[in-house]
């Protein structure tokens, strides 16, 4: 009888509200509440843990020194192991991978139905992604996904840029301030070119929505996001660019009045200041491995030595709670000084 109890009961070490364990056969199980994800690990103890329901401690017993009290308490079960929870960053790389199976590149042309391809609802995503609902929702926003006919779709990048181009061209022809882009006019003027829902989605991705004194919905375009997307469009067409040439073309490509700055490209592009001429190439953090060790191996095989400033945007998301990138580097890299500058390289031999 005791053995039955052991198998049915598992002890966990944290408070919770409502929790869900998620994982595929080949994945480590994680535990999620509404907005957090935890790693589940079994911990062993050589001590014997007995659970006693209703057993009172001295502070709970009345102070009657007169007569001794006898209470029967039953040990309900015992265990040598329990599950430990460790807060961890959710595994979201799979989300983009799933959505990229079938990116949305605009409504079907003419009478044609949209080409068949895998599509996922939120419930489908919750079944497949090891993360909490809120973490999934936040990531969907990060990758500019939108819900079309109940399915979450990621936009084909060229289509996304096409939508953005329509908006910025309209802003230019209407001579609007970037921070005062009226939604209603955009929908009216551009609704014939693209679905209104897509125009609005584009504004939501690249601007901040607010209402003016008259109660109209207005958007303030985000200069950094617009310039960054423009840079990606340029960089994805070649392996490497001459840096100064790139900067010139890039500034010319962004809407007039916006400033293209290199600091907008952190986590998107990598500069090589050691080559002559200096070059720039596309390196997106989302294209790198999700696992910490694999990420470092990947980064060190791309480049042998990194300055903290260069590597930081590519390891920022690996930091645990209260962990700094400095601490991560101390753990996973070896430092040395080169030309008076502190650089980091791999702790183990890497094939470049």
């Amino acid at each position, binding site marked *: *009888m*005791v053995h039955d109890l052991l*198998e*049915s*009961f*598992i*002890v*966990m*070490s*944290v*408070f*919770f509200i*409502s*929790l*869900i*364990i*998620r*994982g*595929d056969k080949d*994945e480590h199980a994680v*535990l999620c509440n509404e907005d957090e994800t935890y790693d589940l690990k079994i911990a062993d103890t*050589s*001590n*014997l*843990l*007995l*659970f*006693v*329901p*209703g*057993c*009172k*401690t*001295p*502070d709970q*017993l009345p102070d009657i*020194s007169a007569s001794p009290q006898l209470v029967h*308490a039953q*040990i*309900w*079960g*015992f265990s040598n192991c*329990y599950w430990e929870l460790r807060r961890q960053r959710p595994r979201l790389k799979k989300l983009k991978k799933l959505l990229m199976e079938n990116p949305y590149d605009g409504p079907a042309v003419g009478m044609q139905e949209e080409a068949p391809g895998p599509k996922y609802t939120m419930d489908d995503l*919750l*079944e*497949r992604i*090891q993360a909490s609902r809120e973490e999934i929702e936040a990531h969907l926003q990060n990758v500019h996904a939108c819900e079309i006919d109940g399915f979450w779709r990621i936009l084909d990048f060229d289509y996304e840029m096409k939508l953005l181009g329509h908006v910025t061209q309209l802003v230019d022809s209407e001579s609007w301030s970037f921070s005062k882009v009226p939604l209603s006019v955009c929908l009216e003027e551009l609704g014939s070119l693209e679905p209104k829902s897509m125009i609005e989605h584009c504004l939501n991705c690249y601007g901040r929505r607010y209402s003016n004194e008259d109660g109209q919905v207005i958007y303030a375009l985000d200069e950094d996001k617009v310039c960054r997307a423009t840079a990606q469009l340029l960089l994805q067409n070649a392996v490497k660019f001459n840096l100064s040439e790139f900067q010139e073309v890039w500034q010319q490509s962004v809407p007039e009045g916006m400033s293209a700055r290199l600091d907008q490209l952190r986590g998107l592009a990598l500069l090589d200041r050691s080559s002559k001429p200096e070059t720039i190439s596309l390196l997106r953090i989302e294209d790198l491995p999700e696992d910490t060790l694999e990420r470092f191996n990947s980064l060190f095989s791309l480049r042998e030595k990194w300055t903290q400033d260069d590597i930081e945007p590519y390891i920022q998301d690996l930091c645990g709670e209260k962990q700094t990138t400095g601490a991560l580097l101390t753990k996973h890299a070896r430092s040395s000084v080169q030309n008076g500058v502190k650089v980091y390289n791999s702790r183990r031999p890497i094939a470049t």
Partner: protein
Amino acid sequence: MVQIVISSKAGEGPAEWLLVELQGEMVSRQNTGLAGNLMGDLHYTKEGVPVLVVGHHILYGKQVKLEKPFAVLMKHSGLPQDEEENMETNQENPTSYTVSALIKKKLIFKTRPKPIITNVPKKV
């Protein structure tokens, strides 16, 4: 992928249980198994120190508030009692857990058990 839901019983909050932690192993005298047998007596001294008497041993312990409270989960495997019935259906009955109780404190006995000697021969 599997999704297993853990929930608390509807209505009431979970009960609070006590954890008693012992070093070593508990065995029954005649190897009859532990279920249904008396383990021992738990006493508290006037100072609130827990004292455990097991067999002819006495252990002194202390009350500790758990840094990370435990939850005791009960597994519902979703499988019907009758195995044959299950073979027919294609749909998997989902496994779920409910919380039976929360444990916020424990009594831990780390000292070496001392034998209780009740018959001390008198010095001749």
